[in-house]
């Protein structure tokens, strides 16, 4: 030991409340460890969240395909359009179920409108889901 080192060792700092100081150190260590534990918990939550997002994305892709399929199944032309486009063609009567014109209208008109409404509803629901997913 040099004289200089001996000189340094002669100085001490007084800690008035050593127990409180030690308690603070221990509590700070405890909190640090609890933060580490929380880190693991958050990591697990995030993994589960990512897995869920992956599943939702997959479901939405399937929904998009299904909605597209419904759109494809819907006729491109209305009867009026067809009449305009092909005025010489007469609609095939065999395909129609024999009913009065009034009945036909009420039977056919409703499902088509119902479908359009359903498709709109589903499309709106899909948009909402996507918006919520983007917000996350």
């Amino acid at each position: 030991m040099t004289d200089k080192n001996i000189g340094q060792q002669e100085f001490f700092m007084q800690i008035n409340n050593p127990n409180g100081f030690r308690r603070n150190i221990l509590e700070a260590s405890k909190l640090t460890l609890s933060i580490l534990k929380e880190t693991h918990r958050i990591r697990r939550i995030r993994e589960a969240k990512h897995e869920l997002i992956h599943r939702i994305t997959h479901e939405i892709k399937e929904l998009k395909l299904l909605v597209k399929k419904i759109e494809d199944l819907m006729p491109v032309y209305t009867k009026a359009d067809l009449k305009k486009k092909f005025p010489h063609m007469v609609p095939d009567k065999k395909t129609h179920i024999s009913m009065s014109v009034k009945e036909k209208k009420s039977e056919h008109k409703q499902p088509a409108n119902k479908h359009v409404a359903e498709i709109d509803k589903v499309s709106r629901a899909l948009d909402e889901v996507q918006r919520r997913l983007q917000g996350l």
Partner: protein
Amino acid sequence: MMSESNPVFVKIDKYKEILSIVDVVNKKVLHVKQLLAELEDFKTKEEEEIMNWEKSMEEISQKIESMQEELSQE
């Protein structure tokens, strides 16, 4: 192309297919809604954990501060 105001007529087989697809779509929408609710739960849990982090960090900094005060007392 189809003018929107005019009614359209769907073949009965296509109509049935559309109905079944709409049914599947509705079930899927419900499922996705459930998954989103789960996601919301995870999000809430994550936020709670982060809040706990902040709280713990605040407590640690208070303790360090008081230790510093203790050390700087003459």
